[in-house]
């Protein structure tokens, strides 16, 4: 059985009085930001959001296309054109409710989603100049909702009597949980750490995504009826089989994230002062090491020291910007390709540069050197040039012979990706995984090789983005709902 398609109604028009020509003359409105010289010493949020006036002005730029490409470009299918119309009409809570139909974490995606790759990439205005600031508008609406939230607005289907376990409380798990609870299922989320949010909590720094916002979005989900249990490592504390056979769960969704940090395998990686980005960011974000000794988790002293992050993704930028805020004297990115190939968001690169982060591109470390006491002293690096494109489509870095050089370094943070966490794989018989250890799941239903078990997010795809994981969570919720209703696998 599938849900009947919603009847197609012609798209409503907003109360926007301006003709399209006038709309397109309005420049894209920027969010307010903290000044770089101030914020690079603080962990408080960089972006300050739109005022009501700025939001309205931005929303007025929408030309209300008949076939809005922004919606198709969204991994979770947020009805962008509808919520923007509601902003123009001044119905901000209505706009929030419209986003929530497809996205249970609007205040989070409004902050960390790479809109330029999705909705804003699809936006017709993008082809004629600057796209509509969809991400900024989403953030504005979500923040408005945070201040004016009312439990009464939550709409849920009647209870189905079915129980679903969600393993991992990151973006995919939370999304699946939200969608499933709305459908009337009993949803229980298991989290290994002591806080709910997964990578949102341990990975993304306060200055990009304040923890208070995650807590509020999670509280909203609690109000929806989602149950949360921390300190449970599924696979160790309880297995998937036990959840289904002994605890009565009818379906399980695995959204445990990418997992184990990778190292380069070069000499000196075990030296004190060499971190994985996961460890460094976890110390900062989850454990509040930047507030030591008020919080007990310690961090090496960064003040005045040379710090390098190896890698060019968003994690690398989060790490180096955090290092700067800990007082690093010189903070730089060491990336083996050129800036064009960097996977990080353009906005983050811009923010990082404004704050004083240096970019040493086309260079990679060959070895970390010891100070004689077990601490990092320097990195021996090698320069690169770009060769032919590799399997990722990006031009391959090729070492330049004889280009070795040494840079003094007190801290090096490896942000070169992750590999699949083995715990679930090792403890769930019959769960098929890829050669690299990621769980095999159907691309539309997220079904795994085990009846009743679904998986999505980084544990299926390898390291990706918050919104792609949320997309997988949505598909899984749909797959799980259909399975629970039909009983068919």
């Amino acid at each position, binding site marked *: 059985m599938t849900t009947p398609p919603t009847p197609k109604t012609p798209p409503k028009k907003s109360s926007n009085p301006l003709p399209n020509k006038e709309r397109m003359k309005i420049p894209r409105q920027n969010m307010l930001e903290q000044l770089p010289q101030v914020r690079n010493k603080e962990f408080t949020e960089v972006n300050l959001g739109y005022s009501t006036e700025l939001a309205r002005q931005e929303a007025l730029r929408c030309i209300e296309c008949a076939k809005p490409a922004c919606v198709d470009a969204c991994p979770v299918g947020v009805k962008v054109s509808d919520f923007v119309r509601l902003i123009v009409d001044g119905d901000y809570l209505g706009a929030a409710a419209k986003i929530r139909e497809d996205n249970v974490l609007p205040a989070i995606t409004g902050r960390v989603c790479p809109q330029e790759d999705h909705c804003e990439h699809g936006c017709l205005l993008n082809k004629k100049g600057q796209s509509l600031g969809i991400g900024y508008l989403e953030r504005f609406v979500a923040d408005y909702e945070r201040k004016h939230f009312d439990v009464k607005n939550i709409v849920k289907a009647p209870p189905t009597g079915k129980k679903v376990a969600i393993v991992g409380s990151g973006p995919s798990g939370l999304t699946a949980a939200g969608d499933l609870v709305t459908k009337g299922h009993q949803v229980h989320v298991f989290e290994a750490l002591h806080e709910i949010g997964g990578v949102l909590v341990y990975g993304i720094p306060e200055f990009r995504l304040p923890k208070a916002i995650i807590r509020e979005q999670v509280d909203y989900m609690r109000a929806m009826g989602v149950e949360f249990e921390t300190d449970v490592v599924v696979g160790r504390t309880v297995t998937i089989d036990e959840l289904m056979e002994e605890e009565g769960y009818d379906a399980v969704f695995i959204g445990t994230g990418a997992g184990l940090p990778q*190292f380069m395998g070069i000499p000196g990686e075990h030296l004190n002062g060499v971190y994985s980005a996961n460890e460094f960011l*976890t110390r900062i974000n989850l454990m509040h090491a930047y507030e030591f000794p008020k919080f007990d988790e310690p961090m090496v002293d960064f003040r005045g020291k040379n710090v390098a992050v190896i890698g060019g993704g968003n994690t690398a930028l989060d790490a180096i910007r955090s290092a700067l805020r800990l007082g690093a004297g010189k903070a730089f990115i060491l990336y083996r390709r050129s800036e064009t190939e960097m996977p990080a968001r353009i906005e983050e690169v811009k923010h990082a540069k404004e704050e004083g982060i240096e970019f040493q591109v086309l260079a990679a470390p060959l070895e970390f050197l010891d100070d004689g006491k077990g601490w990092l002293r320097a990195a021996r690096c090698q320069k690169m040039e770009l060769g032919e494109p590799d399997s990722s489509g990006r031009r391959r870095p090729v070492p330049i012979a004889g280009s070795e050089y040494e840079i003094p370094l007190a801290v090096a943070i490896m942000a070169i990706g992750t590999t699949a966490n083995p715990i679930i794989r090792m403890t769930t018989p019959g769960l098929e995984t890829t050669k690299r250890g990621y769980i095999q799941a159907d691309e539309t239903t997220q079904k795994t090789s085990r009846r009743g078990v679904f998986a999505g997010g980084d544990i299926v795809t390898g390291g990706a983005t918050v919104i792609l994981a949320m997309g997988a969570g949505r598909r899984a919720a749909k797959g799980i709902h259909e399975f629970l209703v039909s009983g068919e696998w």
Partner: protein
Amino acid sequence: MFKILNAQFIAPGIKRFVLEAPRIARKQRPGQFVIIRVNETGERIPLTIEKSDPEKGTVNLVVQSIGKTTHLLNSLETGDSILDIVGPLGKPSEIEKFGTAVVIGGGVGTAMAYPTAAALKQAGNRVITIIGGRNKDLVILEPEMREVSDTVFVTTDDGSYSDKGLVTDKLRQLIENGTRIDLVLAVGPIPMMRAVAEMTRQERIKTIVSLNPIMIDGTGMCGGCRVVVEGRSEFACVDGPEFDAHRVDFAVLVQRNAMYREAEKRSMEEYKREVEGQKAAASAEAETVCALEGRK
């Protein structure tokens, strides 16, 4: 929140906690550990599981006061709670019939060695246990070990109890006496485990050590607990905590465990000051109360 059903010092600075943690109690196997966080501002540290009772849903932890967190933990009493306990973590010990197993516990490491000793005995091994402590008071779990071992030797550094010397002296004796040893399990301070490894390497005796690097999440996510095993990085939380002693680079372990020494010292000093401040405030209050009552 995890309730402390019982808390008692079993030696100076070493406390045994019986905690209500039914999920962990049900799953715990010898060789595994937990990670705890005492309170909202606390750090996460790995701790040894002495044993658990699946029926009662309880887990026993044995904790030695070393730094701030363990001092804070050992200040807790029956009826108090610990904010977070997660586990059981790590791979369980490999239990099979090896023949004769020598189980060595140094100091508080004896608590971690105990459940594996019990399991080895149950699997039909002849179990020879060597427990070591700096002095008589610091020898722990001797009666428990006697219950699960064929023979128990106790050594103290200062000779205040049983044999004077180190656990390795006793191990050397066993080897020199021609005792057939099929497996050695050593859990304790790094210098002890390293010395055991050196001794058995020459004799080619399979030797397992349980490592205790700095950890945060304990699920493989952070990589902070990486240890060098035969030149390769392995994560103690998911690949361990038990490793083949002859393949472990102990020098790197020592060096990495010293990474936060300064911060740890500072934490401890501030904690001491805080506790003294509280004591002073409490005694000042008591004096005021006495004075007021005296006036009545």
